[in-house]
């Protein structure tokens, strides 16, 4: 090719051509925002119109006292906040037990032991193929009296075993995505199996495991609502109790839903921030 001739047609420069403004193009964020506002507007209008049609008496002004009250400058959490506390407690303990069960099951599934793999597989299939509600009844009515635990711990254990079956697959996928060469290199410098897992494999698998694990924590928070059927005093139970007391079904359920939403969304944001930080650290 003749370079001189080429440059006459179109001068080539190493400088980047100027960026086009996004605001007026078809990909403009303004259009996105307008669509969102229109969508939310229609949604709100539908709810309000529907409530009006059934002549619902909105009493939002009565809701705040069930969240918290301030008496003599003292902060007093209402039933909903106390319920949220219990929900967080349940989630916290369940998640710790879930992690232990997940890791153990994942290692059993990857192990060379036939009985280990069998135990893990039976557990996974049994938990995944039965309704959570039935599992909860089994834990509460059968297991709890046998091993002597209260309804709170029966609920925590049930949730942990349920989520553990999903966590096990997340951890297994994470461990398997670490290249074989890493296992071999760890072997070649004489690390024991435990050290290999602790220093080489887990640190590389955790960044891959973390995002789906957050999803698991979020579903744990949501699934904890089912403990209301065995009357653990968590957020949903408190909501149910309040409605039977006040008959404000709309306000209380919207509030309860919003509280769940705030917790789960802030959790996702926290984790994406942590991931972002970790990515910078590399």
């Amino acid at each position, binding site marked *: 090719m003749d370079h001189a001739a080429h440059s006459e047609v179109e001068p080539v420069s190493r400088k980047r051509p100027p960026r086009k403004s996004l605001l007026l193009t078809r990909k403009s964020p303004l259009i996105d925002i307008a669509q969102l506002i229109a969508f939310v507007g229609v949604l709100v209008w539908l709810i309000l119109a529907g409530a009006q049609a059934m002549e619902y008496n909105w009493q939002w002004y009565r809701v705040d006292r069930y969240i918290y009250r301030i008496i003599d400058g003292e902060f007093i959490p209402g039933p909903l906040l106390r319920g949220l506390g219990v929900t967080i407690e349940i989630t916290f303990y369940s998640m710790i037990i879930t992690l232990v069960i997940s890791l153990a099951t994942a290692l059993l599934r990857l192990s060379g032991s036939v009985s280990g793999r069998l135990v893990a597989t039976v557990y996974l299939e049994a938990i995944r193929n039965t309704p959570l509600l039935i599992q909860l009844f089994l834990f509460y009515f059968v297991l709890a009296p046998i091993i002597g635990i209260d309804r709170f711990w029966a609920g925590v254990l049930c949730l942990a075993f349920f989520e553990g079956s999903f966590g096990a697959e997340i951890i297994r996928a994470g461990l398997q995505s670490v290249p074989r060469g890493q296992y*071999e290199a760890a072997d070649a410098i*004489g690390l024991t199996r435990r*050290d290999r897992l602790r220093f080489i494999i887990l640190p590389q698998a955790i960044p891959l495991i973390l995002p789906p694990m957050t999803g698991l924590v979020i579903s744990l928070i949501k699934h904890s609502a089912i403990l209301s059927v065995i009357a653990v005093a968590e957020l949903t139970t408190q909501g149910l109790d309040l409605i039977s007391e006040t008959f404000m079904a709309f306000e209380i359920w919207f509030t309860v839903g919003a509280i769940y939403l705030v917790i789960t969304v802030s959790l996702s944001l926290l984790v994406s921030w942590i991931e972002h930080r970790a990515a910078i650290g590399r």
Partner: protein
Amino acid sequence: MNDTNPMLEMRGVGKWYGDFCALYDVNLKLQRAERMVICGPSGSGKSTVIRCVNRLEEHQAGQILLDGVELTEDTRNIERVRREVGMVFQHFNLFPHLSILDNLTLGPIRNLKMPKKEARELALHYLERVRIAEQAGKYPGEMSGGQQQRVAIARALCMKPKLMLFDEPTSALDPEMISGVLDVMVELAGDGMTMICVTHEMGFAREVADTMVFMDRGEIVEVGPPSEFFNNPTSDRARLFLSQILSHH
């Protein structure tokens, strides 16, 4: 253990993947400070041989004796072997989440129970020898392939091995990176390190090897000093291989 034992002895070693015979009746003897280069067409079992030495692969027939001690399934036996045998991989296999320094000190600290400070000094010493001491704080992803491979050599040396295994250490490198790695290996050989090297670098083999081993289809076809192997290969298979590999040089 005494000095009259060969460093490594393989007697009738066989290895199968399913029904496929990867190694067949492999017999080798490696003396102390001996430098052996294994070559052969791809799929000939060269890598498998050295991977059996530190038991990344299990052999299913025959015996492997390292310094007079036979390799068995016993975990303590395997850990001892891996302490004494260093390995360098084709794709470096550095630990990407650890700094260069931590890559080097992990083995000595965890396996040799060496104090951290001592391990650090040892690591810096070997990094200096492979000429990258000033990059100890970096991460593997920030280095070129040649630098990473030199780090991998230093990592293996930090375990103070009696025997070094190189599994095609330059095959994954850009051409301009190869000589830096080979220089380090030549130096190592000059210091009297016992080593087995699987490589296609015939220049390196000529310069360094005491013994050339030629493999094809899972068996050893020829063993001899490089002068004989390169000038008068006895087998047709070796002649064919050499003509193919040397035709472009």
